[in-house]
């Protein structure tokens, strides 16, 4: 690990001012915020990230980890721990998919460390990015190429990829947030602003070293999730190579509002498939106004994976993605949601 300066921030506004070197969404910015550290410290040990300065946020945790319901909006503090959100009664009742996505992520220890803000900001990354001995990685060394295109790409993305990077977004919570219209509250050196979660992550577009639309020094202070009948009937299904403590090779977040046997609203997010947290409007449209049957579910799954582009070892993914989505739709259909409080 390279040497760095360390400053423990004493307030959010001080943190935002101190961190004017975080760049604009660059993965390799010279200044990095340190919250839970589960991803940052790991990548620094591997010499993939080489920040000159860390701004510590752990002292701000207690003031920014609230979980509350405000009318029809579930508010989750940006510093809330994954474990705390996964077990919170309000989350379990109003949006079970959020709780499930967190409980199925990482390990119990990591969930006690990682914050929601840090979780959604984990890098879209692959084994070639993590191993600095591979010269070709456009995300690590812009312009150097992509070793994964013709490499061992079994768990690489098939949606939203281009020739510059085929890494997949490895998170679970982000997939649920993308599907369910979560909003972000941001605090930066020049004040606060709000953006939709789906506007946070960018596609590779020949510059995969830039992953988000965050401006210099911006911190995610809160997530706001509209909740109601739709989110109470929500599930997150995760398929992995082993039963626990593993990234998805395929996952699906689904929320349904069904009336008289007909889908009024469907929301679909896909994980283990895409370069960024993926919402499938195509899949949603295929279900809207239709009865929920095996045929309509299959049609939605076909639509959701229609634009898939595979690279050899991940040729299996479109079919696995379709089946994962159908299973999630079936589980959402079968579930008994919590009653409205």
């Amino acid at each position: 690990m390279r040497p760095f300066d360390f400053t423990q921030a004493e307030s959010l506004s001080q943190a935002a001012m101190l961190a004017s070197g975080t760049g604009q969404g660059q993965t390799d910015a010279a200044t990095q915020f340190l919250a839970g550290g589960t991803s940052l410290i790991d990548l620094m040990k591997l010499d993939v990230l080489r920040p000159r300065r860390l701004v510590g946020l752990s002292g701000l945790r207690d003031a920014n980890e609230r979980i509350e319901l405000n009318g029809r909006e579930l508010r989750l503090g940006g510093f809330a721990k994954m474990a705390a959100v996964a077990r919170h009664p309000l989350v379990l009742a109003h949006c079970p998919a959020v709780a499930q996505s967190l409980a199925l992520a990482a390990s119990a220890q990591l969930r006690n460390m990682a914050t929601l803000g840090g979780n959604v900001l984990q890098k879209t990354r692959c084994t070639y990015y993590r191993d600095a001995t591979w010269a070709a990685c456009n995300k690590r060394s812009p312009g150097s190429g992509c070793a994964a295109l013709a490499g061992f790409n079994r768990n690489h993305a098939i949606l939203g990829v281009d020739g510059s990077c085929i890494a997949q977004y490895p998170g679970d919570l982000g997939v649920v947030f993308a599907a369910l219209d979560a909003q972000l509250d941001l605090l930066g050196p020049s004040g606060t602003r709000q953006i939709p979660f789906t506007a946070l992550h960018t596609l590779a577009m020949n510059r995969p070293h830039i992953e988000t639309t965050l401006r210099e020094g911006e911190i995610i202070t809160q997530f706001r999730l509209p909740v109601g009948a739709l989110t109470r009937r929500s599930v997150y299904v995760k398929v992995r190579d082993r039963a626990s403590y593993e990234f998805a090779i395929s996952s699906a977040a689904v929320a349904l509002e069904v009336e008289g046997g007909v889908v009024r609203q469907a929301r679909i997010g896909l994980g283990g498939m895409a370069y960024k947290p993926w919402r499938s409007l195509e899949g949603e449209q295929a279900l809207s106004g239709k009865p929920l049957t095996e045929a309509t579910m299959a049609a939605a799954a076909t639509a959701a994976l229609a634009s898939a582009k595979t690279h050899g070892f991940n040729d299996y993914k479109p079919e696995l993605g379709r089946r994962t989505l159908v299973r999630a739709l079936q589980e959402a259909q079968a579930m008994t949601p919590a009653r409205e409080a």
Partner: protein
Amino acid sequence: MTKLTRRTVITAGAAMAGAGLHSGPLFARDAAAEGEGEGAPNNVARVRLMVNGREHQVSLDRRTTVLDALREHLQLTGTKKGCDQGQCGACTVHIRGERVLSCLTLAVAVQGQRIDTIEGLSPPQGPLHPMQRAFIDQDAFQCGYCTPGQIMSAVACVREGHARSDDEIREYMSGNLCRCAAYPKIVAAIKQARGLLEPA
């Protein structure tokens, strides 16, 4: 005469090796040397750590993890270094009462926060903690290297209320790998101890 234990032999050996090459602990010295030159940040910080109810003031390279601080600077070698990248759970300790990975936690970031390690689980001369007793009773280890992490994780698993069934124990202990594969006996040990632990 000092009682000879494995720990005193290892610690003394490390100190002698260090004396021959450097004036300080190996890790800190190497890290400081690496930080010199080309305008590198001054990398040593005075750090206050609260471990097992005792306060320690130590000068540490800022890059030092809680794991290395415990093992290399406080001579608390019960916490083990396995993968050193958050994948095996051997380094599990409790910070602010919650199980976390000390290998991914910088010491400078947790100053003054309560840290509990395997050494603090039971009093030095007192009876073993029920979870330690259960691991022995159930023969829940072979080589023993992952065991301190397993026990710290297991204590937290019970306190969190995640030890209600075998499946739940396996799921919530999945962050602790055991290459000897003592898993069935670890589950048995947690079941033995779960009724004896006070809730959080």
